[in-house]
């Protein structure tokens, strides 16, 4: 186990990225505290200023660790598999449990280092007064340590299941987004519903405990997200500590079990095709799958009017296949129906604007989750698999390649946007006066979807390695949508209203909120400035992508 810890930790700490990350992390935390460090002769005895800084510090640290802690474990096992060293490890006398623990401790070592690096900033906050040492500072660090453990365990488990590093990152961040944000949804929706019984509410409350936000908000002394009168901040923290510990143990045990159950012992896919099977089977499958959606159907040839790169990309990704597209469309119908139902019931109790805000949050979350996973590896994936060399040898122009790849990535995202239209329709039928607001909000999100796809593709094209491209794309999209909200958190102090408006201008969620008139955002005028900024970022990203593809296509 020691050997694995040493190797994992050494490999992480040796990289320049780790040093850069630590430097940025320290600079951000230090800058934050310096902003509010008392420079005048009078002292804030009430501790209001220090609590404001502590709040921004706490959320910043949480989001930072949420992004960093799963990154290394998520690629840890799958990288061993791809490099062929997993077979060597499994053939060594190291027990799978030791292997998992070694990888966990090795990956967490770096996160712990980041936590330790935040101590001076935390101490400065404490020195400013108004913060309880055990309940608040201690509670925050306990919650963060458990959060890091939970997300590292999830990353390791996902890494043991998938076959590529970018898929591992995608799936891990997806699970984390669902746990951190999605888990809050059911309780938020059900707490006001008259028909929801205590059992259902308790279940929703249990789900909510999987998210770190109620616990962190409780510890920071903020009004908790979705916390009803029955659930106090301290209970939120305790529930999160328990849920996090249990989930980490389950993930670690499952990872150990997967490594111990001969992960290399898998037969090659037989490549069965319906056309080659017996008549009875053929008829049965064609009826059952309505012929077109049969995953074992022999595909038709690419038509002259089709972009070959787009078809290739569609065929390469599992979700691009007809059978999966059918499931996706089915899922979108269900989602759309649920939204219509939710919009109809919630609009009566909470108003149309509140429902529009919920739909906007959901759409932005899905775009943030899906766009980097769909678009960041479009070029780096080709370079990594050495398929780029083959593409270079074809007469396809850089524009054909770029268009084909972007179209393939846009299709699933377009379906998501379309799924919300019936809900918007229902809301407009209930309150036609909201038409302009709904159209503006939808336009903002549509622009964001386009920008996110093109931006992620552009950023990803700068990397040789898909995992790095995916991580960078997630980082940039999260910085735009979540990072700028930190400035908003310090809207009264330390930041001025003008500065907050400027910082929020690129944020599509904030722009949508300001259009809808959500409390805390209605005072900022973010549209149409946000549309222009997104338009410029889209054009710049498209230019970067096209230039990079042209550059890569030229002889070196």
């Amino acid at each position, binding site marked *: 186990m020691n050997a694995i810890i040493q190797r994992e930790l050494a490999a992480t700490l040796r990289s320049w990225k780790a040093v850069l990350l630590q430097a940025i992390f320290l600079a951000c935390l230090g800058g934050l505290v310096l902003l509010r460090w008392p420079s005048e002769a009078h002292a804030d005895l009430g501790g209001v200023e220090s609590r404001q800084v502590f709040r921004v510090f706490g959320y910043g640290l949480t989001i930072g660790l949420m992004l960093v802690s799963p990154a290394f474990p998520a690629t840890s096992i799958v990288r061993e598999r791809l490099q062929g060293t997993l077979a060597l490890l499994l053939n060594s006398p190291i027990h799978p449990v030791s292997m998992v623990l070694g990888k966990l401790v090795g990956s967490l070592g770096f996160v712990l280092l980041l936590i330790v690096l935040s101590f001076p900033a935390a101490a400065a906050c404490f020195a400013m007064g108004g913060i309880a040492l055990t309940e608040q500072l201690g509670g925050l660090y306990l919650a963060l340590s458990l959060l890091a453990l939970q997300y590292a365990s999830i990353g390791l488990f996902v890494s043991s299941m998938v076959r590529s590093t970018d898929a591992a990152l995608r799936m891990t961040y997806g699970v984390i987004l669902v746990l951190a944000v999605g888990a809050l949804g059911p309780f938020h929706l059900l707490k006001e519903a008259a028909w929801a019984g205590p059992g259902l509410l308790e279940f929703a409350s249990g789900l909510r405990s999987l998210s770190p936000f109620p616990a962190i908000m409780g510890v920071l002394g903020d009004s908790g997200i979705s916390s009803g009168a029955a659930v106090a901040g301290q209970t939120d923290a305790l529930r999160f500590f328990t849920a996090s510990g249990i989930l980490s143990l389950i993930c670690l045990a499952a990872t150990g079990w997967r490594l111990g159950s001969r992960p290399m012992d898998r037969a090659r896919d037989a490549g069965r095709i319906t056309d080659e099977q017996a008549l009875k089977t053929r008829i049965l499958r064609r009826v059952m799958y309505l012929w077109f959606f049969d995953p074992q159907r022999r595909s038709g040839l690419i*038509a002259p009017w089709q972009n070959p790169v787009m078809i290739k990309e569609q065929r390469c*990704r599992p979700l691009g296949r007809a059978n999966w597209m059918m499931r996706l469309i089915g899922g979108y119908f269900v989602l759309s129906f649920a939204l219509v139902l939710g919009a109809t019931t919630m609009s009566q109790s909470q108003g149309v604007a509140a429902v529009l805000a919920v739909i906007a949050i959901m759409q932005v979350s899905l775009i943030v989750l899906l766009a980097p996973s769909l678009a960041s590896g479009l070029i780096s994936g080709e370079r990594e698999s*050495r398929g780029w060399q083959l593409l270079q040898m074809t*007469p396809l122009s850089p524009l054909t390649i770029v268009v084909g790849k972007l179209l393939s990535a846009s299709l699933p995202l377009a379906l998501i946007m379309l799924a919300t239209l019936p809900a918007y329709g229902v809301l407009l039928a209930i309150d036609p006066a909201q038409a302009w607001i709904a159209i503006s909000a939808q336009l903002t999100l549509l622009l964001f979807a386009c920008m996110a796809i093109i931006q992620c593709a552009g950023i990803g094209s700068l990397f040789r390695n898909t995992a790095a491209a995916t991580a960078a794309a997630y980082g940039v999209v999260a910085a735009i949508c979540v990072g700028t909200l930190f400035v908003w958190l310090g809207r009264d102090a330390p930041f001025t209203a003008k500065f907050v408006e400027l910082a929020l201008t690129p944020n599509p969620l904030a722009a949508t909120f300001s259009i809808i008139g959500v409390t805390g955002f209605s005072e900022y005028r973010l549209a149409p400035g946000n549309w222009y900024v997104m338009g410029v970022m889209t054009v710049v990203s498209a230019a970067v992508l096209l230039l990079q593809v042209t550059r890569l296509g030229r002889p070196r």
Partner: protein
Amino acid sequence: MTSDVVVQTTKLTKTYGSFLALDALTISLERGRILGFIGPNGAGKTTTIKILVGLSRATSGEATICGAVCGKETARIKRLVGYMPDVFGSYDNMRVLEYLDFFGAAFKIPRRDRLRRIEQCLELTGAARMKDLFVESLSHGMKQRVALTRTLLHDPQVLILDEPANGLDPQARVEMRQVLLELARHGKSLIVTSHILPELARICDTVAIITGGKLRAFGGLDEIMRTVRQRRTVEVVLADRDGVRAAATMLGGELGGDASLTQSEATAEIRFSTDRDDAGLAQLLSRMLAAGIRVSQFREMPMDLEDAFLSVTGQSGMKAADPAPSRQVPVAVNEGRA
């Protein structure tokens, strides 16, 4: 078979900073011929290939394929050349037929002809049974066949194959050899790199040996042998084991100290290398017989491509590391083969 030149490089040079990867390489290949391009790792083979297929630009000198200048007329070069790199370049979740369909569509093969063309090429490379399999599930040998099929799809004039026999089982190697010879018979010109030199020797008309970016030998296989063969290896088999020691002493005296003489009492064999011509060897044999040595066989060991390669590379790159490898290595190779 016509004798027009299809591939021509003239003083092709490539430098990466101060590193000279390719030093004034001049080679040519005629239509319907197979060029074996050999050299140790890092010799400049892949650099040459990348310049030829337009993936890399030469620092100086020129390369042309069917008159199209490599690195400039890239669109024409792409149509003229079928390139099979040493890595497969696979896509996940794609069946072989879909994979080939993509490349067929990319080369704008009309849809009505594409399936027929794919099936013809799959048949030619012996990969027809793999068309419905997923690409990532193929073994290395299977992937080599699919890669060759992909290379043939757009009916290129010149095929540039990087290690096509790599990872193939003996049966598949024989089949691959037949496919390459068949392609040459159809007028295709092939440039093949391989580390399996006996394989190359069986299919190549022309050989280029390159080390450290420099062309060491170029020409027909026989021509190369004649050029590199400065010393001959001779094997003497005696009628009885008892005379081996005396015969070795006698030959040692006759040949001097640089004959790399080896003897085996178990097989009653003696080997030595010499620069004597046929008359000199006949004289040596008659002296042995006159000395009462009972010779059963007296023959020169034939030199093959492997020996030629080792001889050439031994003269260049290995000298510094091993002062006298060129005489001993061929003998070791011959013994291994025997």
